[in-house]
């Protein structure tokens, strides 16, 4: 008798665990829908991100929730446990559609995979807004993000401003075929060449810190006159910096992304600067424009969420901002 009671107890525990988790979930689904009644009455906005487990996406989440709070609409932010869980993201989108949200804000991990389920949403009249990464969805309301080419251009301009005409520079790209990093390199190259710099080396380092370090060591073997470096992400920039420091050189290195580590390095006077996308703004703009779409107001087909140029002057401020938005 005792034993089957025991085993039933296990099942009961499982059930109570689920109930407990349900309560936990309700608490975490922040935002309040007190004020601003009319069109938004009882409407929620579902935000499905690539994951919630990395700092970048935490910033997007923080932005989306802040917008929900300030504009008075309930916002649910969900995402799989990692960016590799592509089908789980599709499932989450379906489960959100099933709850008839007022609007959907999605950042697709594999753009083509979300199209069938998002088409379902638009057919049901749910506005779909894409952030960070675009997808070929016919009836999407808008795409909110930054052009990597522009980010690269800004980096190129920043680097050029620290150098003299005719100086030699090196570019470190991401993995072959990575369109995001490739675009950044293209933009940087254009800006640098327009400013009269000479690009003498351009090599991939797969967005990896230690790989960037050895790639840079090799470049410095052959090109002793390099006066500046741009890397297509911050990890690579920090790797490049190590190689440069090991050689006892002091030349400006510029990265991209604006990670905490990079910003701290800028404050310490090591990294010369970085170009940051604004994940917080993407989340905020996503929800803000979703509300517009629900109200039937016009939303631009393409919204630029802006680029931040971070150098020693504003690095401290940026670091405090990064820390403040993740604290919540």
């Amino acid at each position, binding site marked *: 008798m005792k*034993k089957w009671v025991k085993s039933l107890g296990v099942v009961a525990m*499982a059930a109570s665990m689920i109930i407990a988790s349900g309560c936990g979930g309700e608490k975490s689904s922040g935002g309040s829908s007190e004020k601003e009644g009319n069109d938004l009455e009882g409407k929620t906005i579902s935000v499905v991100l690539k994951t919630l487990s990395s700092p970048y996406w935490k910033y997007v989440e923080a932005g989306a929730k802040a917008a929900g709070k300030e504009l008075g609409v309930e916002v649910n932010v969900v995402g799989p446990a990692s960016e590799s869980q592509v089908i789980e993201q599709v499932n989450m989108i379906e489960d959100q559609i099933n709850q008839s949200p007022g609007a959907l804000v999605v950042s697709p991990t594999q753009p083509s995979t979300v199209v069938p389920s998002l088409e379902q949403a638009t057919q049901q009249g749910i506005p779909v807004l894409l952030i960070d990464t675009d997808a070929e969805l016919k009836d999407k309301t808008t795409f909110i993000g930054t052009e990597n080419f522009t980010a690269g251009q800004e980096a190129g301009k920043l680097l050029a401003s620290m150098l003299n005409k005719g100086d030699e520079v090196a570019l470190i790209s991401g993995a072959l075929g990575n369109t995001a990093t490739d675009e950044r390199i293209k933009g940087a190259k254009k800006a640098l060449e327009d400013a009269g710099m000479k690009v003498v080396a351009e090599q991939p380092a797969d967005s990896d810190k230690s790989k960037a370090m050895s790639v840079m060591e090799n470049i410095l073997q052959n090109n002793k006159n390099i006066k500046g470096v741009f890397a297509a992400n911050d990890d690579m920039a920090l790797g490049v910096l190590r190689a440069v420091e090991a050689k006892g050189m002091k030349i400006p290195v510029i990265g991209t992304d604006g990670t905490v580590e990079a910003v701290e390095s800028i404050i310490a006077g090591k990294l010369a600067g970085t170009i940051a996308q604004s994940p917080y703004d993407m989340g905020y703009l996503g929800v803000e424009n979703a509300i517009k779409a629900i109200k039937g107001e016009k939303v631009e087909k393409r919204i630029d969420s802006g680029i931040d140029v971070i150098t020693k002057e504003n690095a401290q401020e940026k670091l405090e901002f990064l820390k403040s938005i993740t604290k919540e």
Partner: protein
Amino acid sequence: MRELAVNSSETNVEKKSVKHYLSKFGALIGLIILCTVLTILSDKFLTINNIMNIARQSSINALLALGMLLPILTAGIDLSVGSILAISIMLMGIVSVNMGMHPILGILVCLLVGCFFGWLNGILLTKLKLPHPFISTLGTMNIARGLALIVTAAAPIAGFPYLIQFLGREFVGPIPVSFLLVIVMYIIFHIFLTRTKTGRYIYAIGGNKEAAHLSGINVDRVLVIVYTISGFMASLAGLVMVGRVNSAFPLAGLSYELDAIAAVIIGGASFFGGVGTVWGTLIGALIIAVLRNGLNLLNVSADFQMAVIGFVIIAAVYVDVIRQRKSKKD
């Protein structure tokens, strides 16, 4: 312990029915409790729409788990199913999208690639005599994943012809075709495992490999069949996945072997082989899908979902442990 033993003999008559009930329907009872709780917590849970969502969302794992059941019945394991899924659909994409060949040919390529890698698992185990299928399938898991990344230099493939999308995308009335496929495959496997010689050999090998060998069963041949079928089911699951999302990508099915194993185990199969049914496995797959879906409806974070599923696996196996301990005593 002794106290318990006394207790159990005292209540033998009453308990027999309870025990019988639990061992036969333990997972099913769990599923029913789960559904009841979720119905109370979310008004969106028990709707036709959502039930069909669950049917669709469970189908990929249900197919993988059905394939996984066979190696587990032989006291083995197949860690490569997620990777086999990926290489199968990538090659199907190359044939039917990039090269523009007939969709039927693409489907054939997909299923044959699955069979090939499964067969390879079987050969590695029986001919190369690698000590445990954990090792052979761990090897093919990495090989197949690597190849899936190599064949298109990690680029995804989208825009599949309708015929390929059919299984994963279409509905008969409100019912997704993918779930009908699941039902059909489970019935076929049920018949295969219970009514054919090979099916019964699979249980026999899991029960006692030596004895099976001595009684004249060609153990190696059966094992090769088992792993080939598992590979085939992985590619079939891939076909369904491609239909659902109209794309193939090299990281598809990453770590899906773990969900498949979980479904089989929650469904009451024993890791030591010889014990387990297709219907238990189906319920196991449904429990996982219902949990994920329900927790999504309640907006529980994905991290928490992982923890809950981990808990359910342990709870389900614990019930199994108690059951076995009891049956040994009886």
